[in-house]
């Protein structure tokens, strides 16, 4: 009996096990996100605090022999402040003067052209902005298109007093579609010729425009519409099929920039979703299960990215990276990592909320039972809690993915909108709208909708299968 007891004491007393490593690991995983949020906000404050110093700029002025300002850089010490620009000179003889750079003499120079124009002649060697009119009268300017266009407008400039011009429009077979005689004279220096009945409609199928110009006339502008590609012979016979194969959507999918942005969007959103879960699961679990000092504070902090205007998130990240070593800064800012980081900052907050709610719904007694059955905290977490949280994890991942896909403001500021580099789908829409290509923007929107739907359906199907 005594021996048995001794044996049981000596060997039987288990060492006190600790769950501390598990909690520390969770804390570190989740803490990264919390620290990032705090750092981002502190950086803004720090930036403004530091930026109140006096700025210095160096401005260097150079003159040519005739006293014209040809270059100014930033070499001479000067002081800028918010009150304006003050310039002092080193030389006691010459007081500082600012010249406007003008090629040629303003007295003899004819009025400069408001916009680049096209004419027949040669460039004036004395003043490169001028084009000399040709010597012969009745010269022709010929415009030719490989694919027929719909010509809507021709702007003429620098018309002489008696114009007498002819515009001839021809189709692909060389047949004349329309001839316009322009005799409207007067003192007008420029004339807008509307080809069709309304400003937006013109004459279709024009493949050649011949402009007969009198001496001194220029063409300032041409306006025309075209479908952007050459029709294949079969398309003329099957217009519906042609429309199915060639529409803004397929057109967009053919563009390398848009293909790149689709690829980048898919990759960055997926990485963002994984990273978001990576921090959301530990934070959600800790917030849901454990009371620790500062818990309420952290609970509030992880909500900040949700309430913060997205643009502010982007700007704050940009400012935060001002305080980071240059090499790391250059690796991230305006590069792909910036895309992921900007998406992550917002998406993770939503994932954290979802995971928190998920863990709140899972009865903590199940973990307790697992603990009594011999699990460490880590085992209880991986073997009981995580399987039960599977649906919540899927939801959080999907939500983070979708959030990341729609992220735009922070990306524009923090990652830029460089084509083939940091352009994701939302940026594409912005860029296409900027150049006025609404159809392409809508097409990209449709691609995004489709992508989001596919992810939603996959997550749903997967989630249902997992729970059965």
């Amino acid at each position, binding site marked *: *009996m005594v021996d*048995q*007891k001794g*044996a*049981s*004491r000596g060997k*039987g*007393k*288990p060492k*006190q*096990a*600790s*769950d501390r490593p598990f909690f520390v690991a969770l804390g570190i995983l989740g803490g990264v996100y919390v620290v990032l949020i705090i750092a981002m906000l502190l950086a803004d404050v720090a930036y403004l605090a530091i930026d109140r110093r006096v700025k210095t700029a160096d401005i260097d002025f150079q003159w040519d022999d005739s006293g014209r300002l040809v270059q100014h850089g930033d070499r001479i010490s000067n002081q800028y402040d918010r009150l304006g620009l003050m310039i002092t000179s080193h030389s006691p003889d010459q007081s500082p003067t600012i010249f406007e750079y003008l090629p040629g003499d303003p007295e003899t120079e004819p009025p400069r052209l408001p916009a680049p124009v096209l004419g027949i002649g040669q460039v004036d060697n004395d003043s490169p902005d001028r084009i000399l009119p040709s010597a012969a009268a009745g010269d022709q300017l010929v415009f030719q298109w490989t694919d027929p266009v719909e010509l809507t407008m021709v702007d003429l400039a620098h018309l002489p007093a008696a114009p007498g011009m002819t515009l001839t429009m021809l189709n692909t077979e060389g047949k004349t579609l329309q001839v316009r005689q322009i005799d409207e004279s007067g003192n007008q220096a420029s004339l807008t010729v509307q080809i069709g009945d309304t400003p937006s409609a013109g004459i279709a199928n024009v493949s050649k425009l011949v402009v007969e110009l009198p001496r001194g006339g220029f063409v300032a502008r041409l306006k025309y519409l075209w479908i952007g590609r050459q029709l294949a012979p079969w398309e003329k016979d099957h217009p519906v099929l042609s429309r199915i194969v060639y529409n803004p959507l397929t057109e967009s999918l053919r563009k390398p920039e848009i293909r790149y942005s689709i690829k980048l969007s898919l990759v960055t959103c997926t990485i963002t979703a994984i990273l978001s879960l990576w921090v959301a699961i530990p934070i959600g679990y800790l917030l849901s299960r454990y009371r620790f000092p500062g818990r309420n504070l952290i609970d509030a902090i992880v909500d900040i990215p949700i309430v913060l205007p997205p643009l502010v998130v982007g700007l704050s990240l940009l400012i935060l990276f001002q305080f980071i070593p240059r090499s790391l800064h250059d690796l991230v800012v305006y590069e792909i990592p910036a895309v992921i980081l900007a998406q992550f900052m917002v998406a993770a907050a939503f994932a954290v909320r979802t995971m928190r709610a998920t863990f709140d719904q899972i*009865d903590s*007694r*199940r973990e*307790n*039972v*697992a*603990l*009594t*059955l*011999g*699990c*460490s905290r880590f*085992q209880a977490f991986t*073997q*009981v809690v995580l*399987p*039960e949280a*599977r649906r919540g994890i899927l939801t959080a991942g999907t939500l983070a993915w979708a959030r990341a896909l729609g992220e735009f403001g922070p990306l524009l500021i923090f990652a830029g909108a460089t084509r083939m580099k940091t352009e994701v789908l939302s940026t594409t829409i912005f860029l296409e709208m900027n150049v006025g290509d609404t159809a392409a923007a809508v097409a990209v929107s449709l691609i995004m909708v489709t992508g989001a739907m596919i992810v939603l359906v996959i997550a749903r199907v997967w989630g249902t299968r997992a729970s059965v």
Partner: protein
Amino acid sequence: MIHVTDLTLQVGEFRLENVSFEIPTGHYCVLMGKTGTGKTTVLEAIAGLTPVSSGTIRLGELDVTELQPRQRNIGYVPQDGALFTTMSVADHLAFALRIRRTDSADIAARVKELATLLEITPLLERTVHGLSGGERQRVALGRALSFRPPTLLLDEPLSALDDETHGQMCDLLENVQQQTGVTILHVSHREQEAQRLAQSILRIENGSFQLTRGDRPVPKRDEQPADPGPGESISVDESNGSSTADIPRTEPGN
């Protein structure tokens, strides 16, 4: 033996002070008390799930006060079972053994044995969705017994059952105790259960604990547990002489 000395517990606003009692090895003890008197809290403290402010808890000779739940070797059945929703019934019975990295053949044998004992063999492949109240309790009981703990804590295991199932479960618990020789602490608020099952009754009234003899006879001193396994004994209770020898010592894997 469950030996609690001067135990003080604090959970939020709720406080229990200077709890002391001793449940002899192999006894079926029913813990009685009104709602809100801290029955579940005491149970959780013994299982290691509620922190202890002061005092000691000993299981046999082993002071477990500072130990993690997994080191205490206690079978615990919480109220309504708290089954794992992602696992099948067989998974539940095998869970504790898998955590201990037991040989899979041994696990299969043990699952079969438990299923027979608890009469849930037809349910083994089912998930826990759609199990009846009685079935859930059997699964939870099987899960708690699977690693042959010398001590079993039951938190109102019969509260949500209809009369017929209630009777069956009482028979089952009695049967389990006789076959395994496990020390059971059973929380209940029904006198009927205490009369039916208890060998000793622990009553909480106004924060004080009183142990009285129950109606059911205590097994004889020399009676051996019917479910012995290989292994080293962890405790021999000399105070009343009944033995918990040959209860396997299964350390949880980490």
